[in-house]
């Protein structure tokens, strides 16, 4: 029954996620028919292409395990699908790259198979905060990659790079900004708290959250587009139609390298650092192969390839990497990042969502 219901939702997702969704149905493509195989979910589109080209082929060569890559939609749509499938005992992907909020939500239903750290010796390389644990200490996921959301601008329209998130509130930005439409992926509450209220601790209380939302409401006249679809903003940013906003540092860097008039700036308050974990669905029957895969991904050399080719920030310690200072600067920053208050999106998600929707659509 719940599967049928889920089928209805995934049709919506297909429409919404557009190409990503369409390719999700066309996938998984079997790379090579082999005895041992593993289905790995990564974000569809550019991310998945890049992983297939630079990572999965090498992994198969090193371990003999064939990888079927599954394009997953961003946001929590994939979490919902994994959960519904797990209830029916199926796993659309054995290992998936999941956001932090999705990791916490999955924990509440024991969706993630606990990882056996003895089988992942390379996990010692990781920065401690990239190990995602259940409240009782079992390991739910291991940091795959991290990325930054920064202040991006069109260089033709704004000759001078912005320096602070506060620039978004300036009067000359009227109707010029593109921002993410959801409270749980824009992290604008954290940005507001860090910029104007002394830090994200200001969001500890409901009053603090309401105050941050009031400050954010002042931003509304400046926002031309609240986007759910990344392609929509990226195109408008490149053409100068919407010359400023928040966007992913990695993709903006690639667009600039292709000759587009765009730049990504780490504001003085810091970029927003978000990350994805590798997690295994409890319905997967390939836990052995999945552990091998996660262990492989924790090697400093593989993380360095990801930084160079995909533009993501590494989850292993800087000292273990052979990245030059320049290469590291291209994917990260020395400025202390704004770390999202993931706890709030679990304990207060409905309150936040309701207030946020009323703020932007009201």
């Amino acid at each position, binding site marked *: 029954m719940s599967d049928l*219901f889920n089928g209805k*939702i995934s049709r919506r997702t297909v*429409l919404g996620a*557009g190409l990503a969704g369409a390719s999700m149905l066309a996938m998984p493509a079997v790379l090579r028919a082999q005895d041992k195989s593993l289905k790995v979910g990564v974000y569809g589109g550019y991310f998945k292409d890049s992983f297939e080209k630079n990572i999965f082929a090498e992994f198969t060569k090193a371990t003999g395990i064939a990888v079927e890559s599954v394009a997953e939609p961003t946001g929590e749509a994939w979490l919902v699908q994994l959960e519904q499938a797990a209830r029916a005992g199926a796993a659309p992907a054995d290992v998936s790259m999941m956001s932090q909020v999705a990791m916490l*939500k999955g924990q509440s239903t024991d969706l993630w198979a606990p990882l056996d750290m003895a089988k992942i010796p390379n996990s010692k390389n990781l920065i401690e905060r990239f190990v995602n644990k259940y409240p009782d200490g079992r390991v739910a996921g291991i940091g795959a990659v991290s990325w930054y959301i920064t202040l991006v601008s069109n260089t033709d329209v704004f000759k001078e790079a912005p320096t602070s998130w506060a620039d978004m509130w300036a009067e000359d930005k009227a109707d010029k900004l593109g921002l993410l439409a959801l409270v749980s*992926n824009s992290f604008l509450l954290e940005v507001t708290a860090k910029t104007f209220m002394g830090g994200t601790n200001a969001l500890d209380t409901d009053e603090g959250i309401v105050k941050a939302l009031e400050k954010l409401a002042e931003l509304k006249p400046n926002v031309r587009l609240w986007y759910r679809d990344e392609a929509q903003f990226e195109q408008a940013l490149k053409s100068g139609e919407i010359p400023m906003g928040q966007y992913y540092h990695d993709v903006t860097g690639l667009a600039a390298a292709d000759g587009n008039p765009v730049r990504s700036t780490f504001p003085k308050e810091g970029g927003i650092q978000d990350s994805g974990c590798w997690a295994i669905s409890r319905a997967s029957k390939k836990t052995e192969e999945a552990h091998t895969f996660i262990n492989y991904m924790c090697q400093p050399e593989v993380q360095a390839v990801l930084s160079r080719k995909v533009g993501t920030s590494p989850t292993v310690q800087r000292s273990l990497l052979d990245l030059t200072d320049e290469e590291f600067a291209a994917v990260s920053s020395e400025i202390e990042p704004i770390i999202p208050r993931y706890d709030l999106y679990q304990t207060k998600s409905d309150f936040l*969502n309701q207030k946020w929707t*009323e703020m932007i659509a009201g």
Partner: protein
Amino acid sequence: MRREPPQRLADYGPLFFPAGMLTLFFVVPFATMIAVSFFQRQQGGFYTPDFVFDNYARFLSLFFGKVLGFSLFLAIAVAIACVVLGIPFTYLLARSKRRIQVIWLVALLCILSLSEVMIGFAWSTLFSRTAGLTNLLVWLGLVSQPQALTPSFGAVMTAMTYQAFPYTVLVIYPALVRLDPTLTEAARTLGASPIKAFFTVVVPALRNTILATLIMVFIFALGSYLLPQLLGRPQHWTLSVLITDQAVYQSNMPFAAAMAVFLVLVSLALVGLALYAGRQKEAK
């Protein structure tokens, strides 16, 4: 051929397949949705089977009332715009040469092959400041500098009308072709101008078709959730957009289901009202 009422069970045979499909793909999912709408939401998780009214209670607020009101208003506006544009267009089409009719109908059918995503992106480019239609006006010297026409209510209306227009024409076309041309000729002979003949003869003769078209486009437009997002500001987001947010992004299935059930009930009520009003008028 004489039609006899079905005598044996086997005579109902042809009905089994559609009935089965309807049960499998409509009744079962819809019943599931109603059931889920009463489930208990687990914040930060999923949901547990239960029987609570919380999800409906949350919906009953001024904010969601306004969103529902706007969604209904938008759907009705699109339906009226489609009919107002569609009838004169189809009337002229039905009276033109066969070759021209075929070309137009093929072009309209082509629109149906476009997905909502493509229509949305195409219109957002046409309405943009940097590459849009206003650049043509600048080139013609009508305005001094290009303007962005999106996001706006007009942009949402235009794209949604564009999307529903082929359906409108395809529903009205057969009725207009079948309309006896001697009716308008009689009106003309009796001294009515072409416009008067159109409004006093053609439009009343098509009343049922018009009502059916209005209802069809209304239902069609009510489910739209991508175009308001791509071309509108947040105040132009329909209830369908918020349902998607809850189901896909907040993993709050019970609340999404409750909103969807509410939307279906309200639209059924409106359709029922329209049909009832139509029948009352006919009875007079």
